[in-house]
């Protein structure tokens, strides 16, 4: 016979187990993908950053961390090897660019060719701001201010308006 108390204790135990499982499962998934042994956590993080930043040349909408293609796997191993040999991040990125071109960079470098790409949006914003500014200036100068529509009534119109308002009050 199971009493109410032990039932509750059982439920608590089950919940505890589930929680443990929830923390443990993602760890095993990670282990299945990555078989690399790193010197320390800093190197592991650099590896994660580099493979996330570099684009797979074969499957173009994935970075080399996510891609399953053989070339991405080769590049992961190459990056791992260079990290273990003590290469800097810049050296590794230069190595990849020298072979696969600027294409592999998800964040293009700032140079003459990419100047428009980096600063173009700000330029467009500036142009937009200037256009808005000029248009509002013009409207205000023309007395065409939408906030004060009474300004563009002629003298006769104004007199008629006052007359109508007065009639209403009666």
């Amino acid at each position, binding site marked *: 016979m199971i009493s109410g108390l032990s039932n509750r204790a059982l439920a608590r135990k089950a919940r505890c187990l589930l929680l443990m499982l929830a923390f443990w499962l993602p760890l095993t998934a990670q282990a299945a993908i990555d078989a690399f042994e790193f010197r320390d956590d800093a190197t592991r993080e650099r590896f994660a950053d580099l493979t996330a930043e570099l684009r797979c*040349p*074969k499957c*173009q909408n994935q970075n080399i961390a996510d891609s399953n293609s*053989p*070339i991405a796997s*080769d*590049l992961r191993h*190459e990056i791992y090897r260079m990290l273990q040999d003590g290469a800097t991040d810049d050296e590794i990125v230069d190595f990849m*660019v*020298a*072979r*696969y*071109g*600027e*294409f592999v960079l998800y964040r293009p470098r700032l140079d003459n060719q990419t100047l428009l790409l980096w600063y173009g949006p700000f330029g467009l914003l500036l142009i937009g701001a200037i256009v808005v500014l000029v248009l509002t200036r013009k409207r205000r100068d023309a007395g065409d201010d939408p906030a004060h529509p009474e300004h563009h009534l002629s003298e006769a119109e104004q007199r008629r308006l006052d007359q109508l308002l007065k009639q209403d009050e009666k």
Partner: protein
Amino acid sequence: MMRRLILFFPLLVFFGLGIFLWRGLQLDPTELPSALIGKPMPAFQLSSLYDENQTLTENDLRGTPALLNVWATWCPTCKQEHDQLNKIAREEGVTIYGINYKDDRAKANDWLQRYQDPYARNIFDPKGTLGLDLGVYGAPETYVLDKDGIIRYRHVGEVNEKVWQQLREVMQQLDGGAS
């Protein structure tokens, strides 16, 4: 009058953008320019596919303008283009070098015996180290080398008659520049 013309400005911008984006649709995003165009063949030291005791280096690819073809027996498109390569080597007398990329030596030699061998030299690259230095991202790839071993052109994918016409044009320009 001036104000009227200004009203057409957005239409002009629309057409400009339209033409720009429409042109973008015609481009093939999978075709990447090689980072090595105009650069010499990367240095390597690998064995010949035919004889594991014979070592080949980048110097063995100099002397005459040539095609350098990256191939493997596991690559279906390589099989498709093989007849075309045979034709180029035999009928047009073009020197073709091969890089046997991440393949098995025995399988590759069998393959060449069965389907004929268009290659003047074949570099055995089982780990893909030379492929990595060349920026190979998928076989088949075909490069045009000039007589000094400088990389002049790269084509990714099958070499068919149409692509061969392009490659020939590049090679003819090299010849013209040399003499």
